[in-house]
């Protein structure tokens, strides 16, 4: 502020001369400027190809399914820092500490020309001691007497302290737009994505009436304003997800109806916002609607019905996140995630930690 005062004085004294300078430069710049930049090719094409030419923070956080995005919602941005003539990728690790469960996820993606990303994620949903609690609930719902050992359960329903493991392979293609460059239009960057999910605990998901694999299709639009709210970068993303994944696939795909399997896809909206506190620190939130399926058996079936009702309860997922980029090729995300009721256990919320490295 002190500085601009000095400049004001400076400007008052030199305004005429400066304005004359502007006009002169304007008049003479055309012929001179044409020769100011030499048509030199970049010195090393191979180095350039892998040089992460993208701008910091664009597309370098990974969502829990392995696609570039925030924490629980895929965004339209392509992962990593590739530009139109580059290839690159990211690797990530995410750990979510919920009240009763933990979700550990690792994976990576390969990106081509800021156009296509091919991603992989492995999720390890750890039940811990809650597995035995759930076994007790299952026995109770089936009418077993108190003190009945877990081993009395049908083998496929025995959880113990097992982990539920899911693999996700995804592909995302940018259709049009560039969230960073498109500042003179309201049009967002738009991408479509597909993910194939597979649960390794096949007999368990069959026992609860879902399928071990499923498909997810989405279209996502991301708009970034470089001079957004109060002059800071501001991002809004809307994603439409077509899916039959129960708890994002952790409890399988589809459900049961009165006449057997009921696998119909649901269309679920997802939203994300981001606000850059500084150019390498992003504060935001996400909201993801989740599909609801009846698990195990229709609610009116004695014994298994009430168990199904309890397991089926699904809440919408939400998070508040803070993503920090200490350097361009590393992002650290700290979030508070609230997944609601998961496998009959309420209030599954907690800390979400994630790191993504770009190359």
């Amino acid at each position, binding site marked *: 502020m002190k500085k601009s005062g000095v400049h004001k004085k400076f400007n008052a004294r030199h305004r005429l001369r400066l304005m004359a300078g502007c006009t002169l430069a304007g008049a003479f710049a055309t012929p001179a400027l044409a020769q100011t930049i030499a048509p030199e090719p970049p010195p090393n094409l191979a180095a350039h190809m892998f040089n992460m030419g993208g701008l910091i923070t664009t597309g370098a956080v990974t969502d829990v399914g392995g696609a570039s995005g925030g924490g629980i919602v895929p965004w339209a941005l392509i992962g990593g820092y590739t*530009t139109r003539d580059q290839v690159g990728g990211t690797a990530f690790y995410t750990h979510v500490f919920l009240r009763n469960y933990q979700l550990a996820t690792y994976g990576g993606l390969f990106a081509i020309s800021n156009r296509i990303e091919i991603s992989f994620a492995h999720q390890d949903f750890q039940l811990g001691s809650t597995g035995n609690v759930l076994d007790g609930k299952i026995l109770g719902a089936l009418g077993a007497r108190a003190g009945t050992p877990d081993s009395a359960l049908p083998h496929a329903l025995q959880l113990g302290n097992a982990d539920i493991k899911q693999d996700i392979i995804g592909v995302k293609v940018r259709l049009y737009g560039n969230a960073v460059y498109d500042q003179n239009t309201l049009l967002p960057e738009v991408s479509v994505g597909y993910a194939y999910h597979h649960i390794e605990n096949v007999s368990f998901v069959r026992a609860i009436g879902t399928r071990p694999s499923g498909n997810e299709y989405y279209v996502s639009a991301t708009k970034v304003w470089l*001079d957004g709210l109060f002059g800071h970068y501001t991002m809004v993303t809307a994603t439409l997800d077509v899916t039959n994944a129960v708890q994002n696939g952790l409890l399988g795909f589809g459900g049961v109806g009165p006449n057997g399997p009921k696998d119909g896809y649901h269309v679920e909206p997802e939203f994300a916002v981001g606000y850059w506190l500084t150019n390498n620190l992003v504060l935001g939130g996400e909201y993801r609607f989740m599909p609801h399926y009846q698990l195990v058996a229709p609610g009116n079936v004695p014994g298994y019905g009430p168990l199904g009702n309890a397991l089926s309860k699904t809440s919408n997922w939400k998070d508040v996140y803070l993503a920090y980029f200490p350097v361009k090729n590393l992002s650290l995300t700290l979030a508070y995630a609230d997944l609601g009721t998961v496998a009959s256990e309420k209030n599954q919320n907690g800390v979400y930690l994630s790191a993504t490295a770009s190359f």
Partner: protein
Amino acid sequence: MSFLRRAFSRRILSIGLGFSTMLMAPMAAHADANYYNEFGQRPGLNAVVGDMLKNVLADDRIKAYFTNANIPVLHASLVNQFCMLEGGPCQFNENMQKIHQSLGITQAAFNALAEDLQKAMRENNIPLSAQNNLLSKLAPMEQVIVTK
């Protein structure tokens, strides 16, 4: 149940729309002339462009583009352009497409120069909103500057 869900999602949608209109308002509110002042007017822009070119000429990613460049002319021209873009009393009538065509400028080079500019603006303590306003005016020029 499904009616409730639908009503709720409609409400979320309208919240989303309301939020985006809320976003638009402050963007239009800030008069451009204020940004020119926040840059320290012409002397401030001179310093920013000077530091930016210093960064560019030391930047292994892009310095080769400037081997035969007439730096003082480029400097004056960039000051003029930034001055005009930020609402200052300057004229800049260059055709950005014509100047840059057939130079083989990559997106990565375009972005590298933007990073060098950001570094210069940070070093000169330009307010973040003014920095971002200039970036938002320069960003769409990617379409005509990058050789495709």
